[in-house]
């Protein structure tokens, strides 16, 4: 049965409904879409805010952290009065203020090998906006095993990366891109290395774009390409992203067939954001 728009929805989504390529059909797909954001910080803020504005019907927020004053330079879902609150609550309020029709589901928890399938299972699309390697590898492995598309974005100082991993026949995953994380201590976290405040806004908005394209079937996503962005030179580059037949998760003979936690070999502070 085709869902009818309410009068309020027709007004709210008017610029999408009249937009060739999206239209009423695309807007309906957005209203029915379920997208979960891992992390509600620098990347998760713009991702979830744009998804809420676009009318994505159900948005999941996963974060264990509380809002800190040092977050506000870039994590735009949170405000000064939110300092000390759980980020998922603060972000939920921000999304509901933008669009009260969105059903926001919060997970005030760290994603682990124990809970990843339960947390990610109900969702159509997963957006990775976390801040550490162990969870990035975990989200990759879990989405590959669950067969769910993953919208990847990552930042460091002035640089960002984004792509879409879509499990399927001979399609790449995050481990095809980076088979191993850097050894502990070689890459500083945002807390140690700093981050240019607008950078996650740019990369997160690209992730939101890709999630909306996946939900609506619009255009061509970054599948098979990695977007590299440098804010200092304003250089956007795309390089080819290939499936690795020897990948331990999505290769011909997978050796990683269940979820594992990577904390044992990733000594990078995961709470530093």
């Amino acid at each position, binding site marked *: 049965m085709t869902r009818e728009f309410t009068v309020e929805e027709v007004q709210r989504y008017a610029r999408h409904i009249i937009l060739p390529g999206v239209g009423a059909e695309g807007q309906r797909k957005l209203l029915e879409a379920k997208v979960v954001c891992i992390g509600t910080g620098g990347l998760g803020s713009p991702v979830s805010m744009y998804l809420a504005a676009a009318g994505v019907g159900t948005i999941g927020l996963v974060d264990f952290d509380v809002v800190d004053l040092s977050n506000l330079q870039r994590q735009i879902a949170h405000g000064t009065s939110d300092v000390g609150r759980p980020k998922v609550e603060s972000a939920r309020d921000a999304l509901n203020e933008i669009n009260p029709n969105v059903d926001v589901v919060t997970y005030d928890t760290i994603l682990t090998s124990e809970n990843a399938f339960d947390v990610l299972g109900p969702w159509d699309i997963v957006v990775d906006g976390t801040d550490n390697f162990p969870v990035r590898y975990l989200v990759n492995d879990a989405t590959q095993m669950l067969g769910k598309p993953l919208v990847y974005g990552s930042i460091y100082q002035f640089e960002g990366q984004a792509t879409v991993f879509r499990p399927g026949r001979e399609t790449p995953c995050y481990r095809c891109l980076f*088979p191993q994380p850097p050894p502990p201590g070689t890459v500083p976290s945002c807390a140690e290395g700093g981050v240019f405040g607008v950078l996650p806004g740019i990369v997160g908005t690209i992730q939101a774009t890709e999630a909306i394209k996946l939900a609506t079937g619009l255009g061509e996503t970054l599948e098979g390409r990695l977007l590299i962005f440098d804010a200092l030179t304003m250089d956007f580059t795309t390089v080819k992203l290939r499936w690795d037949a020897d990948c331990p998760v999505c290769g011909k003979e997978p050796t990683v067939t269940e979820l594992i936690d990577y904390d044992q070999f990733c000594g990078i502070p995961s709470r530093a954001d």
Partner: protein
Amino acid sequence: MSVNVKLPTILRKHAGGEARVDAQGATLRELLSNLEGSYPGITKNVLTADGGLHRFINVYVNDEDVRYLGSLETELKDGDTISILPAVAGG
């Protein structure tokens, strides 16, 4: 062969803060060796102790990952763009 090398932020400190440098080399191995000669320390985190490529830093010749070309023996052409891309995890 003169090629242009795009450096990630983390390596720019070795090259006086430059985002791009020109360098010479008939192969990627030769290019990295020349880069190290001009900018000591720049390949320390790109190459392993035994001279291979790390699995957490990718090198692209134009838009192709050298792992799918000839790795360090990948031949370079005049005007190629080399991009060095470390895994980053910030969010």
